[in-house]
């Protein structure tokens, strides 16, 4: 593949990834405000979150200041994201596989970040010991990431295929997702083993992307890995694997959304409450002609008529 094709392919994939991801994120953000549906424990409840308590435990809570912790939700999410606390607690038998897979992803993401740093260090002609140090860490991340990721993916594939608790829920996309992820990790491991100084070659590749140097050459194992990874990145935002985005909303906008109604909310609510409704059961009979307000405040005589 020539240099210019690499540039077009790589930046094209990243562009599409960002566009689709942004579109899907905005689609979630733009959904209307919903009724409250919080679920304990809510970690931002200062002094109470640890046992699942909330501000509603205070006598005449509306007259009391609310103390919210910023740190506690971050610690909760860090445990959830990095250690997969929920799976450990509720499905320990699955944890080794899913933890390996996720840790593999985090390490590879970390390695990619470091490779961008390394490319900048190369461009800036930084002292060699700094670059060596950064390349060393990236190398550890890469090796750990490819190993853990491969083990996790293979383990999950086997577990999902053989475990009667999981197998009935598999679809073709379950396998496609795991196979593609596995291909990224395994091709990475293969490149690490067979492309000479893998980390240096990869940082040179990054450098050429950043500097728009079209004269880059990439070894076959590294090419195979980069193409596989880019295809996965292209596929990722089309799937439910973007739960890393959705999870923010399921926690912050639903489970932990215990905010009482305020003026800003009221404006939006008033608009929603006056929308036409078309549910057609006998006790509603809205047919697009009545609004939520009409229905909820209808006099009893109307109900008797229906």
């Amino acid at each position, binding site marked *: 593949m020539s240099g210019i094709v690499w540039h077009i392919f790589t930046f094209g994939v990243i562009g599409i990834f960002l566009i689709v991801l942004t579109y899907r994120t905005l689609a979630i953000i733009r959904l209307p405000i919903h009724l409250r*549906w919080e679920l304990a424990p809510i970690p931002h409840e200062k002094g109470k979150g640890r046992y699942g308590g909330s501000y509603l435990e205070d006598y005449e809570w509306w007259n009391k200041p609310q103390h919210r912790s910023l740190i506690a939700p971050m610690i909760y999410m860090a445990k959830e994201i990095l250690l997969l606390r929920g799976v450990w607690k509720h*499905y320990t038998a699955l944890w080794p596989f899913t933890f390996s897979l996720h840790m593999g992803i985090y390490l590879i993401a970390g390695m990619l970040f470091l490779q961008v740093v390394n490319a900048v260090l190369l461009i800036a002609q930084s002292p060699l010991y700094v670059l060596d140090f950064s390349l060393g860490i990236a190398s550890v991340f890469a090796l750990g990431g490819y190993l853990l990721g491969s083990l996790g993916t293979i383990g999950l594939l086997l577990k999902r295929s053989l475990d009667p608790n999981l197998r009935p*829920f598999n679809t073709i996309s379950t396998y496609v997702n795991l196979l593609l992820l596995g291909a990224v990790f395994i091709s990475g491991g293969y490149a690490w083993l067979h492309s000479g100084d893998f980390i240096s070659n990869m940082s040179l590749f990054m450098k050429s992307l950043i500097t728009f140097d079209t004269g880059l050459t990439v070894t076959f194992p590294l090419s195979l890995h980069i193409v596989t990874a880019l295809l996965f990145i292209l596929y990722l935002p089309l799937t439910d694997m973007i739960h890393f985005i959705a999870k923010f909303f399921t926690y912050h906008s639903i489970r932990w959304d215990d905010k009482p109604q305020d003026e800003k909310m009221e404006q939006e609510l008033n608009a929603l409450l006056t929308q036409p409704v078309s*549910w057609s059961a006998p006790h509603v009979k809205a047919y697009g002609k009545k609004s939520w307000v009409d229905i909820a405040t209808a006099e009893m005589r109307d109900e008797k008529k229906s």
Partner: protein
Amino acid sequence: MKKNLKLTDFSKGGERQLTEVNINELIPLPPPYDKIEELPEFKRLTDEQRERLVCNLDGVVSYAALPKPKNKKKEKKYVEQFVSGLKKLLSKENNWTFLQPLLLSLDYCAQCQTCNDACPVYLASGKNDLYRPTYRSEIFRRLVNKYAKPGGRLRAKLNKGDIELNWTTITRLYELSYRCNLCRRCAQSCPMGVDNALITRELRKLFSQELGWAPKELHEKGTVLQLEVGSPTGMKPHVAKDNLKFLDEDFTEATGIEISTPWDKEGADVLLMHSAGDIVSFPESPISFSILCNAAGVSWTLSSEIPGYDGVNYGLFYDDVQLAKIAIRHAQIAKKLKVKKIVMGECGHQHKAFMTVADRVFTGDLNIPRESVMTFLENIVFSGKIKFDSSKNDFSVTLHDPCNIVRNLGIVEPQRRILRYLCPQFREMQPHGVDNYCCGGGGGLSVMSDVNFTDWKVHVAGRMKFKQVLDAFSDQSGPEVKKYVCAPCLNCKLQFRDMFSYYGAREKSGIICSGLAELIVNAMVDIKKPFIEWKEY
């Protein structure tokens, strides 16, 4: 019967029953409840019932009035209505109330099955596949993806595991939506934040708001009756007032302490909203509140306006329209009485419906401050206005955490502070607090009793809780030791009453169940005779 259910089995087999509750497979209970042969038999459907009713799920029927179409054309009509409902669930206009939570739960489940072991129904059933929280949700998810999203049919074919939508599928889904307590233990355990209980409620909502299918105890004899006459109990305002008056007089006569329950007192500080079911089934609860409020000098009132004397709101379990209608009428009554705040009675779902879920329905001056009975009682107990003697409560007490007060609202400690102060032998169940198990009556199930549904409730839905109660008292399991399960929620108490009566827990283990206010009154120094009577139900 199929042992290992596939998702695709769900739409197959027509009238054939999909699976069955096998008593021998349920999790075992501790002695003396471990001998199946000594317990009442699980009521099986008769041949006549099988002929007459839709009973194609698990041999249990929760709604005898489910229509049974005579021909394919009528079946098709219902299926089309179901698809129409699916689309409405995904529309902003028709379902802004829960659109974001629903879509996130439908689109981002990782199928990791982490939630299954959190479900008391699934565990109690001996892990019957049908009762997995994910089984119902995944069927619904595949139907939504196939019939309510663009290109869904093609994607369903390519992705395998395609669920056919037919009469069998929708009737089974309807029944299955009432095999869940909506306790949200599954949601709590989900690493993604997916909420299978919410999906179940949305499914119930679709059936109710589009097809008009809902259990008669929740709809016709529930919310509709409440809006018409004031209460699902059928109790009219003057009857409620008469009952309370009788209770006041009875107490005054027995103790010499003058009690008078105030009604419709404009400008009172507090509008207290009991569950009217307490007046009928647990009268010691409302009279306890009258005693406590009077003794503490609280400026309070009850309302006799329809439906202000019954704080229940079954709409929470199945229908947003009914939920909003009742919540708004409750708020309108409080506004008319010009009270400073509304205090929930000992009723879990009332707390959730009125304090949080409906919070974003009360716009303008309907948004009157609303408070939990737990903090209200805690304030009375620790105000110093009433003298207590905790030795009067020197018997074993454990606390049941109603899901809607504890897991859903995070009100965990006030009731515990009261019990630690007034009950020397208070002990916790395991697990407790926000990790509690549902009583088995959650999600409206406690008031449902059609055909053989009560048998399912006591055998399966409430089994984990019954086991938990027995375990909590395992060091003194005999009937000679008095044991009190404090359940500050009417629906939970109804479920406990059914369970305890079914298993003979009063006779075999000396266990009774009642509320929190009764324990407080029982510890009052001014009341000489024991207030709690260790009678049979």
